[in-house]
C-alpha cells in the first residue's frame, strides 16, 4: 500500500505560519517538515487548533494575505510559496485539488451542479465545450453517481447530504490532479455517510493513482484507509508512521490519549453505561503554540522536568516511524 516508487510528490520544509490576532499573535504552524509521496494516502490527525487545516490551505495558497508564511513547499520542482497568484491559480484544482468541509456550503446555491463542476475545467481551459461536458459526466460517474443526467441539471438544494459529498469529490477529480486534499470532509456527518465518503475516496485514489491527504480529528476513519498517519499538535508534527504500526503501538503520549478515545468506547468496548469517560485532560491554548518547550507538556501523563525546558527533537525509530518526544513509548 505504501509508495512503491520512492518519488516524492510534495515536499514541505520549515513551514511556519503566523497571524496577527486581536489579542495575541497566533502561531498556526511551527517549522513543519513533511513529505507526501505519489499514490500515498496520508492521514493528518489532530484537534482544532493543531494547524491541520492551515497546512491544507497553505498547500493551495489559500491562506489570507495577512498571514506571515516562511519555509518552502516544493511541488514538481517548483517552490509554490514563491509563486504569484496566477501561478497558484494554475495549480489549484488542476494539479492539487481540495475537498472542503461542509459540501453544502462549498457549492453555490444558485448554480446547477453540472455548471459548477464544469467551472473547474473551464478555469484551466481544457478542451472544447463538448469535451468538458464529457469530462464532467465521467467525473460524476467516478464519484459514484449512476443517474448523471439528473445530477447534472440539479441545484444543490435538491440533493441529499451524501450526494453533495460526491459532487465536491467530482469537482476535485475532474481535472485529474496528482494530489487531493480532503479537509475534514466528514465532520458533523452521521456514521453511515462517513463510511460512504471514506470508501468513495479510497476507490478513487486506487483507480486514479492520486496522492491523497485526509485531514481529520477522528482516528477511526483512518484505519483500513490511510497508508501513513501524521499526528499534529499545536502546529507541530508529533508523530508519524505507517497506520497499522501507529495504531497498534502509539509512541507519543498524545497519540495514545487520542486512540484511547476510540478504543475505550463502543463499539470496541461494548455498550456499557460509564460514569466517567476517558479524556485527555486540559485544552490546547493559543499560547501553547509559542512555547519553546514541549507544547503538549501541560496535558501529558509522561511529562518530566526536561519537557518543560526543551522542545523535543524528531527521532526516527522502528524503520519509518518518527516521533518528537523525550519519553516516547511509555
Amino acid at each position, binding site marked *: 500500500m505504501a509508495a512503491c516508487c520512492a518519488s516524492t510528490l510534495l515536499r514541505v520544509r520549515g513551514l511556519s505560519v503566523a497571524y496577527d490576532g486581536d489579542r495575541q499573535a497566533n502561531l498556526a504552524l511551527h517549522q513543519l517538515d513533511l513529505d507526501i509521496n505519489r499514490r500515498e494516502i496520508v492521514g493528518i490527525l489532530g484537534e482544532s487548533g493543531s494547524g491541520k487545516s492551515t497546512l491544507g490551505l497553505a498547500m*493551495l495558497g*489559500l491562506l489570507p494575505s495577512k498571514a506571515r508564511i516562511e519555509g518552502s513547499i516544493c511541488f514538481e520542482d517548483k517552490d509554490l510559496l514563491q509563486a504569484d497568484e496566477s501561478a497558484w*491559480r*494554475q*495549480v*489549484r*484544482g*488542476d494539479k492539487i*485539488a*481540495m475537498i*472542503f468541509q*461542509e459540501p453544502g*456550503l*462549498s*457549492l*453555490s*446555491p*444558485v*448554480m446547477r451542479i453540472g455548471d459548477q463542476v464544469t*467551472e*473547474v475545467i*473551464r*478555469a*484551466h481551459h481544457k478542451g472544447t465545450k463538448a469535451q468538458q461536458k464529457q469530462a464532467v459526466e465521467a467525473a460524476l460517474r467516478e464519484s459514484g453517481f449512476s443517474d448523471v443526467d439528473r445530477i447534472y441539471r440539479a*441545484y444543490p*438544494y*435538491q440533493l441529499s447530504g451524501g450526494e453533495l459529498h460526491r459532487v*465536491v469529490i467530482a*469537482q476535485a477529480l475532474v481535472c485529474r490532479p496528482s494530489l487531493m486534499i480532503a479537509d475534514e470532509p466528514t465532520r458533523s456527518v452521521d456514521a453511515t455517510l462517513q463510511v460512504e465518503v471514506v470508501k468513495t475516496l479510497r476507490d478513487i485514489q486506487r483507480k486514479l493513482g492520486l496522492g491523497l491527504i485526509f485531514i481529520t480529528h477522528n482516528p477511526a476513519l483512518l484505519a483500513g484507509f490511510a497508508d501513513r498517519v501524521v499526528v499534529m499538535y499545536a502546529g507541530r508534527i508529533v508523530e508519524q508512521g505507517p497506520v497499522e504500526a501507529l495504531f497498534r503501538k502509539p509512541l507519543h503520549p498524545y497519540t495514545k490519549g487520542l486512540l484511547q478515545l476510540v478504543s475505550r468506547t463502543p463499539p470496541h468496548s461494548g455498550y456499557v453505561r460509564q460514569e466517567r469517560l476517558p479524556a485527555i485532560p486540559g485544552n490546547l491554548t493559543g499560547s501553547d503554540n509559542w512555547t519553546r518547550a514541549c507544547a503538549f507538556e501541560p496535558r501529558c501523563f509522561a511529562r518530566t522536568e526536561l519537557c518543560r525546558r526543551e522542545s523535543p527533537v524528531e527521532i526516527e525509530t522502528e524503520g519509518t516511524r518518527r516521533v518528537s518526544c523525550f519519553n516516547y513509548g511509555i
Partner: protein
Amino acid sequence: MKFLERRLVHAILLLIGASALCFLFSTLAPGGYFDEMKLNPQISPGTVAALRSQYELDRPLPVRYEHWVQSVLRGEWGYSFAYNLPVRSLVVVRARNTLLLTSLAMALAWLIAVPLGVWSASRAGRWEDRLSTAGTSLLLSVPELVVALGLLYFAIHTHALPVGGMVSADHDTLGPWGRARDLAAHLVIPVTTLVLASLPILIRHVRASVVEVLQAPFIQAARGHGVGRTSIRFRYALPAAANPLISLFGLSVAGLLSGSLLVEVIVGWPGLGPLLLEACLSRDFYVVVGVVMMSTLFMILGSLLADVMLVIADPRVRMDNV
C-alpha cells in the same frame, strides 16, 4: 396558476383602494377648479354653478366615483377641465415622455452601479473602496434639486447644452438624425441628474450584497479550484447576491413614473411631473386621479416583475419536482 390569480385580485383591490383614497383626499383639499372664476366679478354665480353642474362637481362623492369608474372602463379616465380633453390622451402622452427619461436614467444607473458595486465589494476595506464610499456619501448628501440647478447653470453659461424642454423650437424641421441629436441634447441634463441621484443607493446596495456573499465558503471553494477573479465575481458572487438586488430592481421599475417629478419641473421636461403639479394647483380633479392611478399601476407591475424575476433567478424559491 394560483399565484398569478392572487396577484391579480390584489392588484384590482389596490387600484380600487388607491383611487377611492385619491378621490377622498382630493375632495377634502379646500378649493375647487372653478373657485377662481367665482372671484371674477364678470362671471355670474349662475354661470359658475352651471359649469360646476356640467362637470358634476356638485354631485355627491360616491356618484362621481361611479361615473369615473365607468369612464375608466370606457377608456377615457375622466375629463380634464383645463385641457378639455379626456384624461387618458393627456396622461399617455406625458407618461411616454416621462418613461423615456426615467427608463434611460434607470438603465444607465444600473449599468454603472453594478460593476462599480462589485468592484468596490471585492476591494472591501482598501483605499479604493473607501474612496468610492466617500464618493457615494457625497453624492447622497447633495439634493437632486441642487444637482439639477447646477447643471442648468453650467448649461446657461457654456451654451453647451439646451436649457430646458424636451425639444427645440425648430425640432420638426430637422432631419431624422438631427431630431435624434436634438432630443439627446435635451436629455443630458435631466438624465444626468436622475442618474447621479440614484447611483449612491444602488452602488451601496450592490456592494453590501456582494460583500456578504464574498465571505461565503463557496467563494473560497471556487478559489480553491483555480477559478479566476472575474469569474468568481460575476458567475459566483453576483448571482448569489442577486436576491436583494432584484427587489431593488422591482422598486426602480415601480418608481419609473413617480421618481422624476422634481427634475421634470425644474428642467421643464413635458412629462407627468409638471402635469401633476399643475393639476394639483388648479384642482384639475380627474387629471390628478388619473396620474396617481397610472403611478399605482406601475408600482404594481414593478413589484410583480420583481417577484417573478425572483422566482426565475433563485432556484430555491421555485421548489419544483425533487
